[in-house]
Structures are given as C-alpha cells and as structure tokens.
C-alpha cells in the first residue's frame, strides 16, 4: 500500500513532465492510473497493515480497514470520473500539466488519509491532499486566488486543531495509533480531557467538510476553483472531513467514551454538539444555496448542507443514523461530482456560471441535462436514486431518537434542497435559450460519459442498494454500533428501519409501472403539435410561441425567469447576519492588530525604538522585583 502511495506521489511529478510535452497524454495516463486504482482497492485484503517508518520513536503505519475501503472507493469513483472528464475539459485551462500533477497528488493524499492507521500518518497525507488541492484552486478565474487562501486558512485552522488534539492524546497515552487511542480513551476517567480531544480531532473534519463555524470557504473555493476540480473538491475532498468526523465519533467509540455523558436519548453530549453544528450547517447551507445566483456557489452551499446531514447522521451513533450518514457520503459524492461536472460542461461551452445569464440549454446539451437531472434527484433524496436511501435512514434514526428539532431541520434541509437544486435546473437548462448561445453544442462524449456512468451507479444503487450497504454494514460491525442489527436485508430485498422497512425494488417497479401507465394514457390520446421553442433563433422575425398575454416577444431571454427565482422567500431573510462577514471581520481584526503592531513597534523613528528598549528593561525589572 505504501509503495502504491509513494509511487503515485513520484509519478505525479513524472506526469508533470509528461504533461509538459503533451498534457493530453498525461491526462489519459492519469485516467488509466485512476481506473487501475479502483481495481486495486478491491484486491487489497482487509486488515493489511504496512509500517512506513519511525517518526520520533513512534511507528507510522497504514492499515486497510472497511472504512478505508469504502471511502477510498467513493473517492476514486469521483476522481476517476473527473480524470476522464478532464481529458477533454483541460483544453480550456491554462495549466493542464500542473493540474495533472496535482490531481494525482490529491489522489495519493486522500488514499493515504483513508489508509492511515495513526494520527500522524493521517495528518501527513491530509496535508499532502490539502496542499495539492490548494494549488489547483487558484488556476480558476480571478476570484479563485482569494479562494485558495481562504481555503488554505480554514483548512489550516481545522488541521492544526486536529494536530493539537493528536498531541494531547500522545502526551497522555504515548501513542498515535488509532485503535490504541480508542482503547485508552474508553478507559480514561477524565471527561474534560476526552471532550476536548474528541472535539479537537473533529475540528479538522469540521473545517474540511464545511460544517458551520468553518463553512465559509466552500462557497468561495468551490465556486471559483477550476470547474471540473470543484467536482473533486465537493465530491471527494470534503469527504476527507467526513472521514475524520467519523473517526472522532465512531472509531473513537463515543458511546463508550462518553457513557456517563449521555445527554438525550442516548446521544453523548459531544456528539450532540457536533449534531447541533451539523444542523446549523444544514440551515445555513440551505438558506444560502436558495439565494445564490452563481450556480457553482449554489451547489457549494448545498455541500455545506449535505456535510451537515452526514455529520448529523454519523453523530447520532444510531445504527440507522450512522449507516445513513456514511451512505450519504457516497450519495453526495456522486451527486455533487456529477452536478459540478455538468456545470463544468456548461461553463466549458458558455463561459459563464451565472444562472441569470443562462437558460434553455436543454435544447443544446440534453445529455448534460439528463446527467444533472438524475444527480439532483439523488441529491434531493427522491427515489429511485440512491440519495433517498441515506436520507431515509437518517430520518429514521432522528425520529427513533426523538430528536425533533434536529429532525425538523433535516426536513427543512431536504425540502429546501428541492428549491435550490431546482433553481439551476430551471434557470440554466430549462426555459428560453438566450440568443447568444444558439450555436452552443453538446460536450464531447469523453465529458458526458463519466457523468452518465456516475449517475448510472447512483441509480443502480438506488434500486439495488445492497452492494453498497454491505461495506457500510461491515464498517458498522467494526465500530460495534449494534452489530446484530441488520439494515440491509438482501434476501428479502428489504432495507430495514426500526420496525418498518421498505423494498427498493418494489418502489422502483411501482415507479416504472406508473410511468408506463402514464405513457400508455399519453399515447392513447391525440398527438400533440410541436411548439418549437427555438423558432426565434432559427427564423428571423418569428415571435416565441408560448402564452405571452397576446404580446409579441422576439427576444427569448426576456421571457426567461431565472433572476431571484425565489424572491418571495429570499425577501424574508435578506437582512440575515452573515457568518462569512463575521469571519472576515475576524481576519480584519488580526490584520488591524498587525497594523497596530507595525505602527507602534516596527515602523517608527529611533526615538520610539529607544522608548521600547527602555520600557522593556523597566517592565522586566518591575516584574522581577
């Protein structure tokens, strides 16, 4: 495993030079390597352990666990799809060679994180992933430079809190190895220490997966990163955060650790705190996503909300909730990746990501549209896509636990997700095609095939979820969360909740039946006359042929509703307090302190220097005597 990672890292540099010669070759090689890696993750036997080396007397090691397998697999699905996508997409980019290098580094870093057995290895690979992704982000448009900095800082805040926590653990138990830490924590009498440590470890996940206090980087980073890379950011890198959150509540068995700290219906207080943060992210992500005009930022906020779902699910430590949260990782990864790739396709053709400048692209890019449509069905959690299964599990868990407020927030986020995913659907793909895009074409197959493949996977897993549920069940058994309780019942085709179940196959069949019945009805009755919505584009002087109150309209984009889509609702919270502004104020505060220090101590004349020298002497004497 370690050789694999090192080979990836080294090859990423080699690939830079290959890509310098011909970036297309480089990207094809990347895609092939990625495909090979997917194959590879299935072949590594579970429980394999590899020692990397020693660091300050502590052994660093990799371990292949069920959780690592699951997360690696999901990550690789997303990354490989993007790699294939990039083969063509990269010709719109300025730095293809560097992109090829860094995306391979991201892969290596992420896999390393999922394979890590101890916190320091995790940290090292984590930073590799952060560093390389941080260097891809500024390849985008103007705003992306700032985005990279914000991303780096937020990530660093979380990471260093993680590091602090890791060292606190080390100073107490003398080990970094996660299984041992789990054992030690379970027997530790000091509650405050355990709470502090778990929350500090979770901080990295909070920052990375965009949970409430540290969520603001998602908007700017996902919104401005190179378009296809946003798919990796949202679909994969954010999941590193979910992984760490899972470590902090599940690998360190919070139910055992905080057995005396159960707050409400068996949920320990620190978990409850995390759940509260997750709930806050759901609210913020949903509300902010609803009002975005920039489609990438919209989905960025949706990633905040979905990160919240994952955290809420995992945080309950209920078998259903945990499994739902972990499954939501898969669903959101695929959905977000497809959505961002679809947007990348749109931007690739139209060069804008403002919803208010787009419209009617379904006439020109139907395949992209289909991919987007199924992705949002999954994201909104509507059967028969797999997104529903995870949401269902999370709801079941919340209802069973009687966590009504959290449940209400989750419902709010879920219904809100209809609103925000529909906004790009209506604004970008449906409606009237602006005249300037009349010569836009569908993207080439190498770009849409990856999207459709991901969508197909999500669809199949929605109808027959047991292959993806099985690894999660294994994972749950590893963590000892009610291992006797079986959720996925493949024999009876059932997904079981608490005394209530459902059969995804029946639901799918019903849906298909309904569709067929509807289609039969449809064909029975008179054939429709086609209204050509593109007539004004084709024929000079033809008005659009839809209901216009008898008015003649020749400019289709005037008759397209995509600005302030939910104006009535947005108006209700337009004067909301902005956390982002608050964080900027904090940054400004540090900046001002810097200015103050600079102005008082560093800039002035010799007199001031003398003054400070004298003051130092005097103060020290005063303190000493």
């Amino acid at each position, binding site marked *: 495993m370690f050789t694999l990672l090192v080979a990836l890292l080294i090859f990423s540099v080699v690939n830079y030079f290959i890509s310098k010669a011909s970036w297309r070759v480089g990207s094809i090689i990347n895609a092939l390597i990625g495909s090979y890696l997917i194959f590879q993750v299935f072949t590594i036997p579970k429980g394999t352990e590899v020692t990397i080396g020693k660091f300050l007397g502590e052994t660093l090691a990799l371990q292949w666990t069920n959780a690592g397998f699951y997360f690696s697999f999901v990550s690789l699905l997303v990354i490989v799809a993007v790699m294939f996508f990039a083969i063509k997409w990269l010709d719109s980019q300025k730095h293809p060679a560097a992109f090829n290098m860094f995306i391979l580094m991201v892969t290596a870093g992420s896999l390393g994180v999922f394979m890590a057995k101890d916190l320091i290895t995790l940290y090292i690979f984590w930073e590799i992933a952060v560093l390389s992704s941080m260097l891809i982000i500024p390849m985008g448009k103007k705003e992306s430079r700032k985005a990279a900095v914000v991303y780096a800082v937020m990530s660093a805040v979380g990471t260093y809190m993680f590091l602090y926590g890791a060292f606190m653990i080390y100073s107490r138990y003398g080990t970094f190895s996660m299984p041992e830490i789990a054992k030690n924590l379970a027997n530790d009498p000091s509650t405050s220490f355990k709470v502090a440590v778990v929350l500090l470890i979770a901080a990295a996940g909070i920052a990375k997966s965009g949970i409430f206090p540290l969520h603001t980087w998602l908007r700017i980073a996902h919104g401005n990163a190179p378009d296809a890379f946003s798919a990796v950011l949202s679909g994969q890198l954010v999941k590193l955060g979910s992984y760490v959150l899972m470590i902090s509540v599940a690998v360190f068995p919070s139910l055992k650790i905080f057995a005396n700290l159960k707050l409400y219906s068996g949920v320990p207080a620190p978990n409850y705190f995390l759940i509260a943060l997750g709930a806050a992210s759901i609210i913020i992500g949903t509300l902010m996503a609803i009002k975005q005009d920039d489609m990438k930022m919209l989905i960025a906020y949706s990633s905040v909300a979905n990160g919240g779902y994952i955290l809420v699910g995992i945080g309950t430590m209920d078998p259903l909730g945990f499994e739902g949260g972990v499954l939501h990782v898969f669903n959101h990864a695929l959905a977000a990746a497809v959505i961002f790739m679809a947007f990348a396709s749109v931007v690739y053709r139209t060069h804008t990501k403002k919803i208010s400048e787009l419209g009617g692209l379904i006439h020109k890019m139907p395949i992209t549209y289909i991919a987007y449509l199924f992705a949002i069905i999954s994201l909104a959690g509507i059967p028969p896509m797999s997104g529903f299964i995870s949401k269902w599990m999370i709801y079941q868990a919340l209802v069973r636990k009687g966590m009504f407020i959290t449940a209400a927030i989750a419902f709010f986020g879920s219904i809100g997700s209809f609103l925000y995913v529909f906004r790009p659907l209506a604004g970008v793909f449906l409606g009237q095609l602006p005249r300037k895009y009349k010569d836009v074409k569908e993207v080439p197959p190498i770009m849409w095939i990856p999207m459709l493949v991901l969508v197909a996977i999500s669809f199949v897993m929605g109808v027959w979820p047991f292959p993806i549920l099985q690894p999660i069940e294994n994972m749950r058994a590893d963590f000892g969360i009610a291992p006797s309780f079986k959720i996925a019942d493949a024999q009876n085709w059932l997904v079981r909740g608490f005394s209530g179940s459902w059969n995804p196959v029946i639901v799918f069949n019903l849906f298909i039946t309904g569709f067929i019945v509807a289609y039969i009805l449809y064909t029975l009755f008179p054939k429709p006359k086609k209204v050509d919505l593109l007539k004004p584009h084709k024929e000079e002087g033809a008005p659009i042929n839809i209901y216009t109150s008898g008015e003649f309209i020749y400019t289709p984009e005037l008759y397209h509703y995509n600005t302030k889509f939910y104006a009535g609702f947005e108006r209700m919270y337009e004067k909301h307090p902005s956390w982002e502004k608050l964080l900027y104020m904090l940054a400004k505060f540090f900046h001002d302190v810097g200015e103050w220090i600079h102005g008082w101590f560093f800039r002035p004349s*010799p*007199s001031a220097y*003398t*003054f400070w020298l*004298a003051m130092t002497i005097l103060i020290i004497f005063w303190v000493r005597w």
Partner: protein
Amino acid sequence: MVFWISAILIGIGVYGLLTQKNLFKQLISLSIIDTAVNIFIIAVGYVDNGKAPIYSKAVPKFMEGAFVDPLPQALVLTAIVIGVGVLALGASLLVKVKEKHSSIDVENMKGVGE
C-alpha cells in the same frame, strides 16, 4: 558619585533619544550614552587612592588595593574607539540621509513613509 554621574548621563542620553526630532541630536545622545557607559567602566575599575597600574617606586610590587584595575581602562580604550567608529558611521549616514530625504529632522523628511 561617579556611578551617579554615569547614570545621569545615560538618562540624559535616553532623554535626548526620546525627545529630539533631529537625527544628529539623536546621534549625539547616543554618543552621550556611550560616554556614560565608558565613565561607568572607568569608575568600576577605580580603587580609592589607587595608583596607576604601573610598577613604580611608590608601588614596587603587587599589593591588594594599591593599583586601580587596569583592565577597565583597556576596555574603555576599545569602547571609545568603537564609539567613535559608530559616531562616524552615523554621521556619514546622516549626510546621505540629508541628501536623499532633504532633511535630517524626523518630521520634515521626505519619502520615508511606511
């Protein structure tokens, strides 16, 4: 007594550095501090009624307390040299400062913003 003088001189120097707007006056203040330190050093080596540390008729052989300590005097010589060097360096710099910033008054200097 001499200690006090040197302390007062240091005070004067520091006061000058703190209050003077003219860079050359600051340099002079610096020089005053230097001198004060030198006086202090000399004072440290002084022994009441001590003679110059040379074997002479008065003090033909080494006697405790008869000589003033010769080492501080040696040190002071070096320190003075260094002080002069610094003073010269500072003064030459000030010439250049005057050329570049058209003044050696802190408040009137041009182009030293930031």
